[in-house]
């Protein structure tokens, strides 16, 4: 079978498409985590600020919001650390 130039460019295209990271990879998860942490921290900042300004926010709401932000942040940090650790192990294996 004769290979035409258009076949090569088609093959090249699908190969290039394969190289893009899929949407469900760890990178995407980490990105979502970062944006979550960002939103949570903005929420707790707004809550704390308006509690100071006298808005009718319950004390426990503010504290819960702050604590959840901390948990989310620590979770994200731990996931990131584990990912880096796993990557390093992987890199050493290939040697």
């Amino acid at each position, binding site marked *: 079978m004769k290979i035409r130039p258009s076949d090569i460019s088609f093959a090249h295209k699908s190969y290039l498409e394969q190289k893009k990271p899929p949407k469900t990879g760890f990178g995407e998860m980490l990105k979502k985590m970062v944006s979550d942490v960002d939103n949570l921290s903005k929420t707790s900042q707004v809550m704390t600020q*308006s509690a100071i300004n006298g*808005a*009718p*926010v*319950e*004390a426990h*709401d503010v504290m819960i919001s702050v604590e959840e932000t901390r948990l989310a942040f620590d979770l994200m940090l731990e996931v990131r650390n584990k990912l880096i650790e796993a990557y390093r192990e992987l890199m050493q294996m290939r040697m």
Partner: protein
Amino acid sequence: MSGIGLFKTLEISAAGLSVQRMRLDVIAENLANVETTKTAKGEPYRKKRVVIKAVKDRARPAAGQMEFSRIMESNTGYIPLRLGRHSASEIPEGSVKTDDKTPFTLRYEPGHPDADKNGFVKYPNVNVIDEMVDMVTASRAYEANVTAIQTAKDMFLKAIEI
């Protein structure tokens, strides 16, 4: 209860304190003047009393509270408080009125400079026993409001330990 927050409950208790304080002041004035047969107006002292009514607050929660409920609900699936029909705050308000209806007490004292032609003297319409009883209830109610404020403060301090 439009909105929750520490300050609303303090506002309610503070109004309660004001009202009871007003009552205590009026009682003190009544007792001080129990023998005043002639005031500047020329007639005996007329006892005063405090008329209390409840002022209703807006039933809708404050904008801030609804916004936060929505945010927390969307963040973590909390079900926010449903405050209900009777959630508007009712804050007591007192005003001092003079009791014009109760008649003066008449005492037979012919030698008194303010005696009328039959020898009777008009004394203030203050009943000492009633005033003392009112004083006790007003004091107790005052203390109860103080306890409410103390509780609100305790709960706040506990919350910030979370």
